[in-house]
């Protein structure tokens, strides 16, 4: 507290240097600056995939361009299937429909099968995650059934349901359910003891525990890597649809027709891929909403 007194005795020199005014460059208008930053952020996300896609197409083109190659180059696929790509909405009756209709039928089946799988899968996953007894009892069964390829379920489903539509939905259901069960169980088993203690001290009941702790705490794992789940589901549906179609039109699937059908599948694959990508983003968005931002990708 005595410092100021001492200081006033020692400070004698007058400040000699005068301040010079440095003219700073005028700031860019905030609006333009923000727009530029936004643009840069977007291009940082868009440019890398564009570059890579171009590169892959280029390699494909180069590999398949020479005569006698087994697969057509992308340019030929594009020109051959252009009418299918540009007009996905045509409907000439029967199965001769635009890709939009095929995809929408596919997506309806996926939505139904996936919704069923989510309900059953989350219920079973919760059971297995909470009870060690259930885990020990059910886990071996899950592990064995999980490895059965989706296509192998199809004859079983067809035998059971005797119709294409429910069988396809069943195959989607059975493909989607294993990762849901496993991710749910792992997510619940990994709820930190801290959060369980909080719930215990506050005496949250089972329902409150489920909504307030379990879902937000387990959701990051739950909805983790959605790509791993949707892609096989869509692929599974495509496969089941193809087999379904093949069963009905077995005779048509011969020779040239088969080849044509094969080529027609290229744009189909492209569309399916795009839809898968969109679904991926949607699920990531849901994960973000459920965990209220704590599951930052």
């Amino acid at each position: 507290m005595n410092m100021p007194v001492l200081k006033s005795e020692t400070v004698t020199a007058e400040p000699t240097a005068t301040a010079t005014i440095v003219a700073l460059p005028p700031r860019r208008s905030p609006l333009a600056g923000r727009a530029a930053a936004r643009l840069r952020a977007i291009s940082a996300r868009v440019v890398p995939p564009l570059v890579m896609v171009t590169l892959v197409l280029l390699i494909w083109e180069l590999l398949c361009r020479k005569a006698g190659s087994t697969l057509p180059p992308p340019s030929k696929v594009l020109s051959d299937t252009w009418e299918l790509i540009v007009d996905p909405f045509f409907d000439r009756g029967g199965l001769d429909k635009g890709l939009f209709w095929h995809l929408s039928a596919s997506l309806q089946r996926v939505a139904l099968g996936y919704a069923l799988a989510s309900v059953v899968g989350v219920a079973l996953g919760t059971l297995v995650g909470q009870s060690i007894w259930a885990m020990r009892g059910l886990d071996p069964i899950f592990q064995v059934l999980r490895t059965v390829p989706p296509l192998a379920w199809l004859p079983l489903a067809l035998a059971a349901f005797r119709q294409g539509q429910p069988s396809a939905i069943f195959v989607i259901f059975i493909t989607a359910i294993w990762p849901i069960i496993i991710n749910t169980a792992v997510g619940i088993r990994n709820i930190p003891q801290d959060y369980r203690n909080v719930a215990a001290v506050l005496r949250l009941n089972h329902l409150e525990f489920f909504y307030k702790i379990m879902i937000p705490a387990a959701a990051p794992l739950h909805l983790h890597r959605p790509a791993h789940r949707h892609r096989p589901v869509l692929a599974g549906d495509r496969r089941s649809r193809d087999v379904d179609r093949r069963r009905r039109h077995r005779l048509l699937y011969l020779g040239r027709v088969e080849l044509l059908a094969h080529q027609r599948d290229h744009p189909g694959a492209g569309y399916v891929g795009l839809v898968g990508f969109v679904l991926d983003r949607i699920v990531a968005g849901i994960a973000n909403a459920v965990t209220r931002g704590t599951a930052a990708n």
Partner: protein
Amino acid sequence: MTDYLKIDHVDKSFMRGSNETEVLKDIVLTIDSGEYVSIIGHSGCGKSTLLNIVAGLLPVTRGAVLLQNQEVNEPGPDRAVVFQNHSLLPWLTVYQNVRLAVDKVFAGKRSRDERHQWTMHNLELVQMAHAKDKRPIGNFRRHEAARRPCPRAC
């Protein structure tokens, strides 16, 4: 005067497979109301185990914990625990974390408005009212965690 908190010949051992590890043996401690007690010891000597038993998070192997002559055998909001980790729920805001406890303790006893007032009052006590809509991060978490267990005085 009866003892407020009485830890009566408490033993605690943990079973891991067929191995039994004895952590606490014959702990006797009585604490009066308003008394401050520090439990000091080296790492792993059972301080947290004892506190968890008082909190009701762990069952005793032998003996009993009595709070105002009532045996403690389950956790409850009447005993405040500030955990070693902040234990805040990161998907709730600062306000929601405190409000969760306030709602559980005063459900049906105070009106919605009173519970809001009480939550804000407690946040102001730790100078966290300004951050009520933020998510708990870093050092602030401990301050706020201290507010959540609702002290008996409330």
